[in-house]
């Protein structure tokens, strides 16, 4: 019923249950810092975390559908393994700060006023940090964002789902309170602390930095995890910061860190340098792997299926009704699914509901309901297949569009079964070359291309992929310039780094300024673009496809958007 302690240890960081990890980073040159796997297992055991957390996270693949596009089985790369890895990183991180006495007295606040109290909270938060993910996760968010179905107050689907999920773990939080009576808190308080840390709004900056910040344990582990995956995948790039010997990079990262009197995490010289390497590696992975055109081609096809399915489920009550009572489900249960018209207020005595909020809630419900189609062998691919079948069975969708969807599906299933290679699909389906537009013009480009996509929906797909920010913070907040009226957005001051150009961050340089977007602007410039591609499945070289590509390009130029065709294409 509970997850055993040994399941909390990651073999990537601790080779065995008895051999401690040694970090040679202490300031006073005394015995190296040793991190005990036994202590980690004890902490894990004491959490009393329900087994269903492990089961759920093992069903969600770390890279979503991209594993299927690479023709690899999804089992080996799931979110549970990654969550354990992240928890191990957080544990090691905290151990280093604690053992070498680097946490200033003023940085600890009740109820987490000693490092001993923080260990279980860090491990628990990092184990659960992906628990709010829905199937497809990032693809799902992209779909909603593209049709403006994300409420402006939303902090992502994770923020919407996580509190409900955590509510169902009340037994685990009660176990926590029983195991750690010295906290003198209620189980509900533990849930709120964990939720706050995961969502990025806890009021202890250095602890928040470990769990969710531009340089958190999650990023450290998923870059390692995905780099290892890439080294075994049939994809033509290799990560540069492989983190093959994880203690090597971790030692660098932890060597010159401290938590100052104000509770901020200071990354001096060597630690800042290691963080910079991590950001560079992350951006490299986004540019050459996660958002690479080779993977965007099948992603965009899947996107179209998911988008169509969600639109229909939300706006068409008859269509949703058929989903709720599928004839072939063995349990014959009728699910209560509510679409747009069921969620908005009809009577004067009901509270009016914002239409975007209504549609958003409806899609979340559908995605959670659709999980049951994933199964254990196909994960998200099984769900995608179900969506495709429901759309093709529906009478009132244009026939030529259905044929187009069928063509897309044929490409995707060939990929998943290994019948065609990714590069081959890209060469057959990506028209001419990608177009680059500045990231700040993303919204305008998307709106300008929307009617074009509708006009050619049965012939081509237009994909616009934005590169992420270098600093992936949970949220950005308004910032007013000195004496000015304009408000920009930037991250809170939680982490300190050295001043000066990025290449001047060398060992021994003191951290003296807060980390912000401005600090990494040089690195940001390299990746401040969006990539637009036109996809015609297996018809990239036809005259019609080239015509559509040309229309896309001309519409962008006529709208005043700066467009560049990608040079050296295909690579």
């Amino acid at each position, binding site marked *: 019923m509970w997850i055993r302690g040994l399941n909390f240890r990651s073999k990537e960081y601790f080779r065995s249950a008895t051999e401690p990890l040694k970090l040679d980073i202490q300031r006073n040159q005394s015995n190296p810092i040793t991190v005990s796997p036994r202590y980690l297992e004890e902490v894990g055991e004491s959490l009393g975390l329900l087994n269903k957390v492990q089961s759920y996270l093992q069903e969600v693949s770390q890279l979503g559908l991209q594993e299927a596009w690479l023709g690899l089985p999804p089992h080996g790369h799931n979110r549970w393994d990654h969550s354990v890895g992240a928890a191990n990183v957080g544990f090691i991180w905290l151990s280093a700060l604690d053992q070498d006495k680097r946490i200033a007295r003023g940085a600890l606040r009740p109820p987490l006023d000693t490092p001993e109290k923080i260990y279980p909270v860090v491990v628990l938060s990092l184990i659960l940090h992906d628990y709010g993910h829905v199937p497809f996760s990032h693809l799902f968010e992209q779909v909603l964002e593209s*049709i403006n179905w994300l409420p402006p107050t939303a902090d992502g689907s994770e923020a919407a789902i996580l509190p409900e999920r955590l509510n169902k773990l009340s037994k685990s939080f009660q176990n926590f309170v029983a195991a750690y009576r010295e906290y003198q808190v209620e189980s509900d308080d533990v849930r709120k602390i964990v939720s706050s840390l995961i969502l990025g709004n806890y009021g202890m900056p250095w602890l928040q930095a470990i769990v969710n910040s531009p340089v958190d344990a999650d990023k450290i582990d998923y870059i390692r995890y995905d780099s290892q995956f890439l080294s075994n995948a049939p994809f033509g790039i290799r990560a540069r910061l492989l983190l093959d010997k994880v203690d090597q990079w971790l030692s660098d990262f932890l060597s010159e860190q401290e938590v100052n009197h104000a509770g901020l995490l200071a990354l001096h010289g060597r630690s800042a340098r290691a963080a910079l390497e991590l950001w560079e590696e992350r951006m490299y992975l986004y540019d050459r792997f996660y958002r690479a055109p080779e993977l965007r081609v099948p992603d965009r096809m899947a996107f179209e299926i998911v*988008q*169509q399915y969600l*639109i*229909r489920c939300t*706006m*068409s*009550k*008859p*269509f949703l009704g058929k989903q709720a009572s599928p004839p072939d489900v063995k349990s014959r249960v009728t699910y209560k699914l509510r*679409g*747009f*018209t069921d969620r*908005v*207020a*009809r*009577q*004067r005595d*009901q509270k*009016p*509901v*914002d*239409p*975007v909020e209504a*549609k958003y809630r409806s899609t979340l419900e559908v995605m959670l309901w659709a999980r049951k189609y994933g199964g254990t062998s196909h994960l998200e691919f099984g769900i995608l297949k179900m969506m495709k079948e429901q759309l093709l069975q*529906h*009478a*009132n*969708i*244009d*026939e*030529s*569009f259905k044929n187009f969807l069928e063509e897309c599906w044929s490409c995707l299933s060939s990929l998943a079964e290994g019948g065609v290679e990714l590069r081959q699909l890209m060469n057959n389906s990506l028209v001419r070359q990608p177009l680059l537009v500045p990231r700040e013009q993303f919204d305008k480009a998307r709106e300008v291309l*929307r*009617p*074009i996509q*509708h*006009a*050619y*929906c*049965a*012939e081509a797909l237009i994909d616009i992929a934005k590169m992420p920010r270098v600093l992936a913070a949970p949220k950005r907040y308004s910032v007013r310039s000195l004496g000015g009226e304009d408000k920009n957005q930037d991250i809170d001051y939680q982490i300190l780094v050295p001043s000066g150009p990025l290449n001047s961050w060398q060992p021994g340089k003191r951290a003296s300024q807060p980390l912000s977007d401005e600090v990494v602007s040089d690195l940001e410039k390299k990746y401040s673009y969006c990539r637009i591609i036109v996809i015609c499945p297996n018809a990239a070289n036809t005259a019609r496809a080239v015509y559509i590509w040309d*229309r896309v390009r001309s519409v962008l130029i006529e709208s005043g958007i700066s467009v560049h065709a990608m040079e050296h294409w295909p690579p």
Partner: protein
Amino acid sequence: MITYGIAYKVTDISRPDLDAFKVTVGYAASYPKRDPNGYIKRPEHFLFPKPTYNGFRLERFGASEVRGLLGGVSNRQRYMLSETYERAISDVITATVCEIVDGREVSCLDGIDIIILGPALPKLAGRLASLRLPRSVRVVWLCPMEFLSWIVQGVDERVVLPHYLEGPPVVEGWEEEPLVQGYRWESYFIQQLWMTYGESTVKWYEPTPHSWPSLRQVSVAIPKEIAAAAGHVQHHVKEPYKRNEKLRPIDAIKDGVNMELYQNPVATRGGDGWEIKWCV
């Protein structure tokens, strides 16, 4: 060809504790090959909150700027309000179209005309396009000129009508306007047509003698389906229909339209609306 007429009306909700508005929508259908040959859906209200605008702002009355007598001047608050209203209307109409297309027993292969009373909205055109409807479904917006007082939304719909509607009818669709084409027919109305799948030729909606009254008898010609839908939406706004209530007669004359021509003396209750036989 089955014809559906959709009408809607937007009204503010006047309560001191509630800053909201409602969209009341209804539709009527005519089935030429069936008996009874028509249907009127009982109108429904959909309530939405108005947006709140936050932030300290100074609005000074200057000495030279344009105020916006005919629209076209941006004001952040009005923009938010317009966006909220247009989004709500578009969502409600989209859900109604889905109900018509997916919920009826009649197959779309027979061909469906959906006529919406009022000007086209970009948000609605985009939503309809997202549905990937069969090509046998044609969507038309009809805007009587002058606007009928009993169907306007309390705003100047002229603001949303594109400038090209002042010119002669367009025979071929221009590729710069991929989703909606429009023109002004005589002096009676403005027609906007939803273009599907990159079509280059335009199939305008043309009235048939059966569905339109003689032009000598009325000063504004509108299809009976949207006249009936609009009339009953008006009823529902003033006093909502109850579940098993009879169909109320529509008032005799409205803005020169002889509504008696659209009366439905034969109406039987059933489900969410009434099955009817058209007089015209």
